């Protein structure tokens, strides 16, 4: 399994009471809660953590994209990727953003990613996303056009990377007389493409058809495993057998000497991450047209989903994160790998309010106790599958 080091870069100094009071950590939470002096320290600590992860032997560094929220401070992930591109010595560099429909000109992504691919001499992984519902409020992009814009922008970028320029592009949303981006990607025909999603059927199907690596975002592991099954089925329908290398699970790992110590130390940071930093109302997350009528009804039917405050125990129990002693974490992650049959873990070592010193200890523990065990590990047949 490849274990990538994934960061959200939350505003860890956030006054959690203010989120509770204002009822949102997204869109409407005032940026007056952001202190640039503290924020500058955070950015540098977070970049240090990323560089340290590369030195420790993680298989790659992953940045992502969110807008106008305390949940993550990377509205322009290319800035962070640029800061890391010349520092990274061992692993891959992945941007698991860019929200294509939010951009007026998706050709900028073709250019930006090609630059990163050249600077890293072909160690770059390109992510394409639609952006989450809240971002259609912050950007003003019409959510009812989200799917069509994504499809068209993706088509434009792939063509820009693979067809000799200049050529004209005439889409419904994007029209260019000259498509001819310099530089061209270092990797041929283009960098590997990762598609993060919360698991909508249409995205899973599309990623499987395109043979893109599908990345399941934060979810209970039961749902993750079901979505990975769906990907394999869709691959079969498309006429091929998918490989575990095409599936990535986004998680968080926290390792201490014992399970008890791990739970005690992780509690405030994990609970802040899963409760306060994810505070947002359903209308904000599900603007009209962003999801199909069927999937809106499916979410509505799951009563109480994310409505109640979750304790650290519940979050761990549902398999959204892995917390414990080295033994516990190894066993649980191995069980997940076998059940989900995936070969990529996108792992956060920092989340919520977790301070730098604790992150460093966690990173070292993961590097010493977890990474070596999984380096050459493939999904094993589970008992059920073997019978």
């Amino acid at each position, binding site marked *: 399994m490849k274990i990538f080091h994934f960061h959200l870069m939350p505003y860890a100094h956030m006054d959690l009471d203010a989120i509770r009071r204002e009822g949102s950590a997204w*869109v*409407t939470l005032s940026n007056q809660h952001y202190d640039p002096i503290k924020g500058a320290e955070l950015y540098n600590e977070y970049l240090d953590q990323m560089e340290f992860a590369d030195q420790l032997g993680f298989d790659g560094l992953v940045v992502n994209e969110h807008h106008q929220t305390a949940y993550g401070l990377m509205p322009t992930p290319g800035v962070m990727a640029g800061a890391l591109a010349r520092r990274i010595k061992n692993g891959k560099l992945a941007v698991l953003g860019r929200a294509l429909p939010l951009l007026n000109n998706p050709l900028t992504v073709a250019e930006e990613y090609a630059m990163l691919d050249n600077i890293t001499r072909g160690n770059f992984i390109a992510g394409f996303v639609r952006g989450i519902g809240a971002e*259609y*409020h912050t950007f*003003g*992009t*019409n*959510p*009812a*056009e989200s799917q069509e814009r994504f499809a068209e922008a993706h088509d434009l970028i792939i063509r820009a990377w693979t067809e000799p320029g200049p050529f004209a592009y005439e889409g419904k949303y994007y029209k260019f007389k000259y498509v001819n981006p310099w530089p061209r990607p270092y990797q041929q025909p283009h960098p590997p493409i990762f598609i993060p999603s919360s698991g909508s059927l249409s995205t899973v199907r599309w990623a499987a058809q395109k043979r893109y690596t599908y990345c399941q975002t934060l979810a209970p592991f039961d749902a993750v495993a079901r979505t990975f099954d769906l990907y394999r089925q869709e691959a079969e329908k498309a006429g091929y057998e998918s490989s575990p290398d095409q599936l990535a699970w986004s998680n968080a790992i926290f390792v201490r000497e014992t399970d008890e110590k791990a739970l005690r130390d992780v509690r405030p940071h994990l609970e802040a991450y899963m409760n306060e930093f994810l505070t947002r*109302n*359903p*209308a*904000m997350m599900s*603007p*009209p*047209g962003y999801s199909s*009528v069927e999937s*809106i*009804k499916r979410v509505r039917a799951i009563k109480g989903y994310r409505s109640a405050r979750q304790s650290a125990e519940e979050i761990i129990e549902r398999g959204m994160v892995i917390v414990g002693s080295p033994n516990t974490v190894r066993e649980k992650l191995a069980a997940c790998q076998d059940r989900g049959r995936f070969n990529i873990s996108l792992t956060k070592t920092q989340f919520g309010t977790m301070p730098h010193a604790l992150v460093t200890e966690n990173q070292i523990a993961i590097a010493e106790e977890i990474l070596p065990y999984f380096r050459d590990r493939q999904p094993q047949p589970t008992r059920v599958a073997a019978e």
Partner: protein
Amino acid sequence: MQEPSREMVDVRGYNLGVSRSGKGRPLLILGDFVGPQTWQPFMDTLALTYEVILPRHPGFGGQPLPEWLDNISDLANFYLDFMDALGLDLVKVLGLGCGGWIAADLATRNAARIDSLILCAPAGLHLKGVPQIDTFLLSEEEGVLSLFHDRAQGETFLAGVMAPELEDARLQNYEVNARLTWNPRLHDPDLRKWLHRIATPTLVIWGAQDRIFPPAYGEEWRRLIPEARLEVLPDCGHAPQLEAASAFTHLVNSFRSIERVAP
């Protein structure tokens, strides 16, 4: 009260559901995008005086989304075709909310078939610095309630429209509504440039407590349309036809084409 008749009208290849009731001069109602687009009691009152014609907007209420539907002007042109298809002449046009936006856009293009125009809290303009509720940040329920000044009336109304069997149509309507109004939010920056072309006598009706489009918007519409009169109804939100139905229908009934605004 007689049930409205339902028919399908072929408008250049698009089959549109149309409800009709009453006898008299034709009154074309272009409904709002939020709330129900079905027949409402105030229409029965109007049907005592007029032949009320209520089309279901293309793409709404379970009808297929037409390939040509991208913006409000597409609907304005579509309803010009619709009037041609029905052979309507000297029709009174009543537009509610976003339907008022369609009606005004339509009237700037071609008012030859229009006898008079009534715009009730129309969307379509933007005024800087006037606070407006962002209904897209509200839940479905709160969105319906935000139409009303009196919450109790809103809750009574809500109970009728939130029926589970209507959920699919509601969600579909909400999506098409976003497609047409998300950005620019509920307005067309080009519309105000051409409202002076509306020579038809126009009545603008507004609720004094409208929080979606506060009454300052009513003043702006009156200012921009040469032959417009503004009536502001007290104790009323964004949907006077629902919240102040008798005052509303009285205004509609008593507004005649011969009535000219003093120069």
